[in-house]
């Protein structure tokens, strides 16, 4: 099934640098750069929506080192 396999532009990867710097926080990215961060998700997202109008913006959470995720 190799033909027709595409890398997708919606791939998501924060990368080790961002993960290390913003561990345990929400981050707002505008065109790939962090423009908002903090522990309050609503506040970070509102700031991102304000600063990022018209640009490509992404909201993400960076988990903590010892997080155990059972969803």
């Amino acid at each position, binding site marked *: 099934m190799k033909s027709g396999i595409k890398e997708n532009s919606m791939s998501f990867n924060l990368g080790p640098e961002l993960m290390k710097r913003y561990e345990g926080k929400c981050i707002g990215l505008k065109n790939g750069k962090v423009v908002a961060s903090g522990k309050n998700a609503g506040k970070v997202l509102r700031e991102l929506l304000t600063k990022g109008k018209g640009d490509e913006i992404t909201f993400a959470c960076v988990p903590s080192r010892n997080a155990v*995720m059972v969803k």
Partner: protein
Amino acid sequence: MTVFSFGYQLYPPGETEKYRPMIKVGLCYRESTAGFQALVDSGSDITISFVEVGNALGIDFSDTRLASEIEGRGMKFLDRIEGLTGSCEAYTAPAKVVFNGREETVVIKWLKQRLDPRNDFPIILGQDSIFSLYDIHFSRRQKKFFLNTEILSK
């Protein structure tokens, strides 16, 4: 046939590394739109986010017209979600979810608990959304997962 390939992402950082199937989706409500980190979760029946995310996008969960609209469709506006780690109240409200340019209206359960960035994801995509749109193949061995636009069958 178009197959989109995604790499698993390392979560969380450091010694306790786990690989998660994460993608980025657009979430739109009226005039507000943003990309969100989303977990692709085959173990979830529903698609979940948080009230504070919905509020920031402009959803007013105290709006009685919204409540009436949802109840009129035969759904509970304020519901209780049961999971492996406990239960939580959640509002029911639709929003547009955009994946790779494809826009779908998804009924989302918005959890009435604080989003804890230490161990929560802003959106969890469940069986009622992304799994209804794509055939999904998870390969932990390759650390990749694949979304197929066509129905896979024998």
